């Protein structure tokens, strides 16, 4: 299925962010780890086949760098996941 690997990586990034937001209390997650998981998503070439995914991931990475709230980062990642699901080919 196209975009499956990307969806898995985005879900991983979302889960990390949600761990911070929900205060799961069973691990310390640093912004660096979240940024790394988003960069893992950006490394996949398949995201270029689908409109807006790279853009949203870039915005999420910027949000982490800027210290934006976890919910804002999560929302942007959900937007990337949503675009991936819609799967509209770029261009």
């Amino acid at each position, binding site marked *: 299925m196209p975009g499956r690997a990307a969806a898995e990586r985005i879900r991983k990034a979302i889960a990390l962010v*949600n761990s911070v937001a929900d205060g799961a209390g069973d691990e310390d997650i640093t912004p660096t780890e979240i940024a790394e998981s988003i960069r893992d998503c950006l490394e996949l070439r398949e995201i270029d086949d689908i409109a807006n995914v790279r853009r949203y991931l870039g915005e999420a990475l910027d949000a982490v760098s800027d210290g934006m709230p976890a919910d804002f980062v999560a929302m942007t990642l959900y937007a990337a996941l949503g675009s991936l699901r819609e799967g509209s080919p770029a261009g």
Partner: protein
Amino acid sequence: MSSAEGRGRTVDEAVDAALIELKESRRNVDIKVISETQEEAVVEVTVIDHAAAAASGSGAVPANGKAEVARGLVEGLLKHMGVRAQVTVRPSSEPITLDISGRDLGALIGWRGETLRALQSVTNVMVGRHLAEGERIIVDVERYRQRREHTVREIAMRAARQVKMTGDAITLDAMQPFERRAIHLALEGDPDVTSGSVGEEPERRVVVGPRKPAAE
């Protein structure tokens, strides 16, 4: 508002006992776990006064400004999404909890609650400037989140019983952060077992194991 205390071997059984007494269904009540031990669970089940909730939700009695702002925003968002649903503020809930109810809202919950979680993130971003630091809004659809928390607590208690019998640690299925948190909270008072998490998101799992006696 009528309420009843329920007792049973598990939280579910205790809730059922109270529901029978109240002659109500699960979707119309608020459940508070009073105590939960290996032998017995005690819950307080309160019937939700929909009329009062709707009145506070409609802005007639803005008991809580932040909750009202959040309720209005979520209602507007759902309208834009073309979802017909009622949004109410869960009475006396801390943190502020919005309940969304209506027909055929499965799509709003999504796969493993993913859409619901996304909706909650959007809600918190929208309401963010009205909230104090660290304060959050919880969004629940048809009490899905509450039911999941009860379910995972049941799983935790079962796992704890098994660990005590066998002395072996048990690794549970991968769960979401709020579910893992519910398990840690359910077991933190148990002197015989301990809980921790292993693995990486989204495959992170809770391990329930025997508590090692403190070295003398």
